[in-house]
C-alpha cells in the first residue's frame, strides 16, 4: 500500500528580515492509493506550499509526511509533478521531453522508445514525437507534461494548477483526459486548482483550505469525478447537486477573502 499520510504538518518560513510567516499549521490527512483529491483555497492559503512539501522540494518544519512506508525527504521519481506552465524543456522535442526521466535513469533505449509511443498515444499526441515543444499550443504542452510525468510510473501524481493557463474549451478536454488517466491507471492524483468547478469535477475528495495560517478548512466527498467518467461534463455542471456545492464553496472562499481584505485594511 502506498498511501500518502500527512501527520500534523507545520511549515514556517523566516524571511531575511526576521519576520516569521506561518504557511501551514497542523495539516493532517491521509490520501489512499488510487484516490483523486483536489485542493481549493484563496490565494495565500498554502496550497502550493503543501504540494511542494509532498513533492519534496521543501522540508516541513514540523510533523511528518510519508508515502507508503518511507518518509518523504527530498524529490523523488515516485512522486511525479505537473506544473502550471508545463515547465517543459523547450530545447528538446516532444519525445525527448517525455523520455527525459527514463534517459536520466539510463533505461533501455528500445523499451524507452516503445513507452514513449504508448504514452504519446494515450495523451493524444501520436505523431508529434519529433516536434519541438515550443511549437505546441498550451493544451498540447500540458499533454506532454502529463506524459512526461506518467512515463516514470509514479505512485502519486501532483498537479499544480495544471489547467490554469488554458482556454475554456481545451480545459474541458484536458479535464476529461485527467479523469481518463485516473481511471485507466488507477494512480493517486492530487490536483491544486483555483477553479471551483474544476475542483468539483476532478475531485473524489475535495479539501478547502483557509489562509493565515494555512490549514485544512473543510473536506468534501464528491461523486462528480465518478460521473465524469461516463457522462458529459456539461450535464454534470448543470446538475443541482453540483451547482449547490459550487455555490456553498464559492461563498466560503468569498468570505475568507473578505476577511483577509478586512485584516489588511485595518
Amino acid at each position, binding site marked *: 500500500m502506498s498511501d500518502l499520510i500527512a501527520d500534523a504538518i507545520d511549515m514556517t518560513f523566516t524571511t531575511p528580515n526576521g519576520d516569521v510567516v506561518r504557511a501551514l499549521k497542523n495539516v493532517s490527512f491521509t490520501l489512499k492509493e488510487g484516490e483523486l483529491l483536489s485542493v481549493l483555497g484563496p490565494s495565500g492559503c498554502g496550497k502550493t506550499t503543501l504540494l511542494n512539501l509532498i513533492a519534496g522540494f521543501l522540508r516541513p518544519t514540523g510533523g511528518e509526511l510519508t508515502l507508503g512506508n518511507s518518509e518523504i525527504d527530498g524529490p*523523488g521519481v515516485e512522486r511525479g*509533478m505537473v506544473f502550471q506552465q508545463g515547465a517543459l524543456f523547450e530545447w528538446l522535442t516532444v519525445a525527448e521531453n517525455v523520455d527525459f526521466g527514463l534517459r536520466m535513469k539510463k533505461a533501455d533505449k528500445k523499451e524507452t522508445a516503445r513507452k514513449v509511443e504508448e504514452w504519446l498515444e494515450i495523451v493524444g499526441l501520436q505523431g508529434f514525437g519529433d516536434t519541438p515543444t515550443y511549437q505546441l499550443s498550451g493544451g498540447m504542452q500540458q499533454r506532454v507534461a502529463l506524459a512526461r510525468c506518467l512515463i516514470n510510473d509514479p505512485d502519486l501524481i501532483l498537479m499544480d494548477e495544471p489547467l490554469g493557463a488554458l482556454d475554456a474549451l481545451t480545459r474541458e478536454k484536458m479535464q476529461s483526459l485527467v479523469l481518463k488517466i485516473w481511471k485507466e491507471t488507477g494512480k493517486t492524483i492530487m490536483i491544486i486548482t483555483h477553479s471551483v468547478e474544476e475542483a468539483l469535477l476532478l475531485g473524489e475528495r475535495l479539501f478547502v483550505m483557509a489562509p493565515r495560517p494555512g490549514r485544512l478548512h473543510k473536506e468534501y466527498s464528491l461523486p462528480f469525478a465518478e460521473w465524469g467518467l461516463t457522462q458529459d461534463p456539461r450535464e454534470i455542471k448543470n446538475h443541482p447537486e453540483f451547482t449547490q456545492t459550487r455555490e456553498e464553496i464559492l461563498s466560503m472562499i468569498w468570505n475568507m477573502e473578505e476577511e483577509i481584505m478586512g485584516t489588511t485594511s485595518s
Partner: protein
Amino acid sequence: MSAAGLRGFIIGALFIGLILALISCWVYGRRLIKTEKTDAVFGNPVKALGGWHWIVSGVATILLVWLYFSWDAARAFFPHAANELCQVAKVNTAVHPMRSSFPFDERLPKGTVILDRENAQLQRITNVLGGPEFSDEDRSQLQPYLDRAQGILTSMASEGSVDDATLQAIEGVAQRITDLTAILEAGELPEGADAAIIQARENQPGWGDSTQEVPVEPTSERGALFDSVAKPMAEVSKDFSKIRNTNEQFIVDVETLDQELKDLSAASNSDAVKNFARDMGKLLKRVDNGAVFPPGALDPIEVALANFHEVQQEKQGSLKLIDSFAMPSGTILAGNTACSEQGSGRWLPKPSDTFATLVRLSDPDVGYKGFPLLWYKQKPLSEMVGFLVPDFIADLIPGEYPRHGSDGIVQANFKSKVLAIATGNFDSPTVPVPTGHVWDSIMRVIAGLFLGILLGVPLGLFMGLSRFAKGFFDPMIELYRPVPPLAWAPLILTIFGIQDDGKIFLLFMVAFAIMVISARTGATGTQLSKIHAAHSLGATRWQIVRSVILPNSLPEILTGIRISIGVCWGTLVAAEMLAGTTGIGFVENVARKQSDYEIIWVTIILLGMLGLLFDLIMRFVIHKTIPWRGKG
C-alpha cells in the same frame, strides 16, 4: 590592353552600372511609395519592412562616392587628364614667380606692397624719434637720415629711374612671353613631338601603375603643347627675376647712407641712436634689391602675362571642367621630378588600386613581409605528433635509455625509439597546413575564445548556482574585467612574450570574463519549475546541470560568444599592432608607418569582412541551436 586600361574599363562599366542601379532603385522605390499611399497610418512599423531596393541604393551610393572622391572614376573616364593637368601644372609653376609680382592672384603689385610697408616703417621710426629718449640735438642730427631714406624710396618709383638696359630687359621678357603665347595659341608642336609622345606612352607607367602617382612626361598632344611651353617659360621666369630697378645713382645712394649709419652707430654711446641706425639699416637692406619700379614700367610684361593666361585657360578647354568636376577637392601639382595628386585622390585610395593590391598581396609568393596573407604550407606529420605526444611517455617505459658502447656506436632500443616518436624526430609524410597573416589572426582569436569558453562557461554556471562561488570569484573577475583589455596588453606581452602566447592569453582574458558573466546570467535565469521538474523526474545534480541548466543558459552563452568574438577581434588587432611579426594588425601597422594607404585599406576591408563572417557564422549557429529562444 594595359593593366591600367583594363582597370579603367572595369571601373567605368561599374560606375555606369551603379548609377543605373541607383536610378532604377529610386524609381522603383518612389513607385512603391505611391502604391502604398492607401495606408494612412504614420509610424506603422510595417512600412519599415523589406526594402531591398533601398539597400541596393545605399550600397551603390557608398561605392559611387568612393569611386568619385578617390578620382577612380576620373581615371577611368579621362585616363589622360591627370597627365595633361600635370603639364598644365608645369606651366603654372613656371609662370607663377612672374605672376606673383602683379595683381593677378594677389591684390596689389609687388612694388606697391614694398613701398607701402617701408613708408609705414619710416613713419614709425619718425614717431620714435619724437620720443623722450632722444634729445633735441639728436633729433636735428638724425632727421637728415630719414629724409635721405625717404628720398631713396621716392627715387625708385619716379619716372626715369629705370636705366636703358633694364628697360630693354623688360621689353625682352615681354616679347618672349608673347612669343610663347603665340606658340600656345597656334598649337604648334615642337619638331619630333609626335614621336616623343609615342615614346613617352610606351616607356612610362600609366596613371596609378606605379608608386609615382602621375606620369610626368606628356602622353597627349595637348599635354605636349603645354610641356613645350613650360620649359622656355621657366627660363623667362628666371630672367625676369634678374630684372632689378637699380641704376648707378641708386646703388651709390644706398651704400653711402648705409655706411654713414654704421659710422653713426659706432660713434654714438646712446642706445636710442644705435637702435635708430639699426632700424634704418634693415630698411635699406629690404629695398636694395630694386624690386620697386615706377608705375607703368612693367606694363609690357603684365599685359603679356595676362594674354598668356587667357590663351592658356582657353587651350585647357575641357580639362578645366574635368579638373573641377571629376577630380573634386584638389588638383594635380607639378613637383621637380613628378606630378602628384593633391586632394582626396591622394589619401582615399582608388577602389581599383585597393583591389589590385589585395590581389597582389594574395599571391602567396608575394604576401607581405615575406609571409603570405592566406595560403598553405607542407608540414611533416612528425611535427604534430611531437607536439601532441608528451615526451615523458618515453620515460614511463621500463628500461634504460641506450648508452654508447666502446665501439662508439649508439644502439637504439625500444625506449629511445618511443622518445624519437614523442619528440617528432622521425620521417613522415607532409600534410598541407594553412598559414599566413590572416590565418594567424584567426587562429589567435579562436584559441583565445576556445580557452575562454572552456574555462569561463563552467565557472559561470558554478557562480550562477552557488553563493560561495559567486562571492569568491566575483572580486577576481571584477578586478580585471573593467580594465580595457589593451591596458593589460603591455604587461601581458612582457610576461608571455610577443609571440602567440601573449596575444592568446590576452584574448583569453577578454573572452573569459564575458563568458563567465553570460553563463552566470544564463544559469541564474533558469526557471525554478524546470529544475523542480527535472528533480521529480529523477535527475541527479550533475544531470540537472548538464541537461537543464546548461541548455537553458545556451542563449546567453551563445550571445556571450558572439560578443566575445567582436571584442577579441578588436583587441587582437590592437595587440598585433603593439607587437608581433605576423597578423592583419601587424600588416596594417607597418603599412601605416609607410603611409601605404592602399594596404591600410586592404587590411581594413579584410578585418571588416572577417568580422562579418564570424558574426554570420554565429548568427547561423544561434539560429540552428536555439530556435526556441524566447518561446519557452
